[in-house]
């Protein structure tokens, strides 16, 4: 199994520099880092990947058993680190991949220098004494809406162009990789993501961690970001002005500016 092909690995930047690995969240692929990566490309060895089942990963490598929990993806991250002999890694994880990074750093703490977690949530469903933001019923409805959307997408053959897309050629590329996702895999990943509970893992992580929290985020509300920061012994929180769940897309400059002081001289 060629892990580099499996996860559609792209490596940029100087080969001898400190590695910085970017891992996307649910619903996306490595394209989502396109506005942030250029800022770090000259001083870091950038590693981009698609989680198995997303983007242009090798779908034949996907199995419901292996990816039954986030640990399956964390194991992939570690395999990629070994295949590329990455040491002293800065791991940048968005959304669900924040917890994938937590699991990887727990398994091989010596491999990771720093974690940058963007919009992390250790548990999306409310629990006694914990507000995740969603009920189990909400998640069941999400799975239904996924069914409907993938069905809709596959039947929407003729492009309906609206407004003035800045770069039409980009559209096709993105739509191909976003919509390539097998509906069954997307449903499965949604289930694994939104039913996960990694609260117990947080206090065990010793790696220095930066939490980037948007001021209005329906997926990971500020209270969750504060919970994560409190629970991790070496975490610090930056509350961003940006709203939504994808500051790396909606506010790339603010995201980059928040990362630089944490990364230190290299940044």
């Amino acid at each position, binding site marked *: 199994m060629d892990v580099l092909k499996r996860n559609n690995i792209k490596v940029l930047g100087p080969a001898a520099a400190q590695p910085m690995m970017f891992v996307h969240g649910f619903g996306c692929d490595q394209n989502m880092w396109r506005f942030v990566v250029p800022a770090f490309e000259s001083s870091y060895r950038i590693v981009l990947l698609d989680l198995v089942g997303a983007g242009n990963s090798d779908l034949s490598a996907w199995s419901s058993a292996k990816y039954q929990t986030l640990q399956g993806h964390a194991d992939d991250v570690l395999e990629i680190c070994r295949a590329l002999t990455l040491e002293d890694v800065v791991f940048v994880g968005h959304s669900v991949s924040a917890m994938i990074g937590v699991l990887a750093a727990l398994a091989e703490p010596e491999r990771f220098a720093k974690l940058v977690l963007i919009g992390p949530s250790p548990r999306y469903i409310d629990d006694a004494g914990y507000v995740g933001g969603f009920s189990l019923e*909400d998640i069941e*409805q999400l799975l239904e809406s996924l069914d409907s959307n993938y069905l809709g997408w596959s039947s929407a053959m003729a492009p309906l162009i609206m407004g003035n897309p800045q770069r039409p050629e980009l559209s096709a590329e993105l739509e191909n990789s976003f919509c390539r996702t097998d509906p069954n895999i997307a449903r499965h990943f949604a289930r694994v993501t939104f039913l996960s509970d990694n609260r117990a893992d947080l206090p065990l992580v010793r790696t220095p961690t930066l939490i980037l929290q948007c001021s209005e985020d329906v997926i990971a509300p500020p209270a969750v970001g504060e919970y994560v920061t409190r629970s991790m012994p070496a975490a610090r929180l930056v509350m961003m002005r940006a709203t939504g769940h994808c500051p790396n897309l909606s506010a790339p400059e603010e995201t980059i500016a928040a990362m630089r002081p944490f990364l230190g001289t290299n940044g």
Partner: protein
Amino acid sequence: MAERLVDSRPELELPAETTEDLYENAPCGYMSTSAGGLILRANRTFFLWTGYQSDQVVGHRRFYDLLPPAGRIYYETHYVPLLLMQGSVREIAMELICADLRRLPVLLNAALLRDAQGQAQVIRITLFDATARRKYEQELLRERRHAEQATQDKARFIAMVSHEIRSPLSAIVAVRQMLEKTPLSQQQAHLVRMLKSSSESLLGLVNNVLDLGRLESGHGALELHEFDLRALVSASFEAMRARAELKGIALEQTITGEVPQSVIGDALKINQVLTNLLSNALKFTEHGAVRLSVHCEPAGAESVSITFSVCDTGIGIPSDRLSNIFEEYAQGEAVRTRYGGTGLGLAISNRLVKLHGGELRVASEPGRGSTFRFTLQLKRQDSSGTTSTGD
């Protein structure tokens, strides 16, 4: 030149048609939001559909406030990233929560408009009422689930019935064999021969149905072990010799190339394929020869590539039937009536070859004969102990 049509009431003036009119009363909902999603404007159609008053939403609500929680997740994980990256999204299926808490299924298109500096300014959203479409989609999904369930139930039923039939049938075969050994009149011996042919063909059918059911339900996993390739080929060959002699057809075998002592594979299943192909070849050949050829070639340090082919000089297969010959029950009606058989043998063989990672292929010419061929990559057990043969 086209004739100009004259209306019977020429005095009727065309009513004033303003852009505003078209915007407000379009058959779709229009909405503009800020880059952060705050609703800045919406048309009359939108308010009509959702039951909101303008001052309830404009300047007060964000677009995602109109979505149920699941929709908000979808909005943040699919809609927003796609919109920010490519500047537009199309045909996203969502539900809007209306003023009376009713849910309105919509299809959403959106475009992000930027200012001269490239800063995101306004999101322009078009909404289509997707109530009917959603209803059909849900019916489609429900029916698909029903169909999948029904297929599984049917397969389970067939497997169960076949299994139940096999036990008494095996008893009939055994009793017939015992009967054969008792003193029989000429007529009785004739009846026992009929019984033999019918019971054996029925047992073959039941076994095939069970095999196919197992393969279809994914229970046909390979049982890999070490076996002697020459012994396997020769056993398949010898099992057919009596039938060939009875029919007066020459049966030949060759093994060429670098034949390893032993390989790793599922010998039982490979034997089943060879037996099926040889048995078909003999069945459809009246004159000439049936030849089993096996050729081995090294494939890397540890494996060997083995090509098996069964070639006959029989009736051949018409070109229009070659494309679906490996499908279940593909055997033509005329063929079945004349030659018998279940039409499952090739479908099973094809699946067994696929389990080993190979592909069963056929070449044929009506009246000249057919050749069935497949290649398997098997691990060799003894990398040093190969024997080279050229017979």
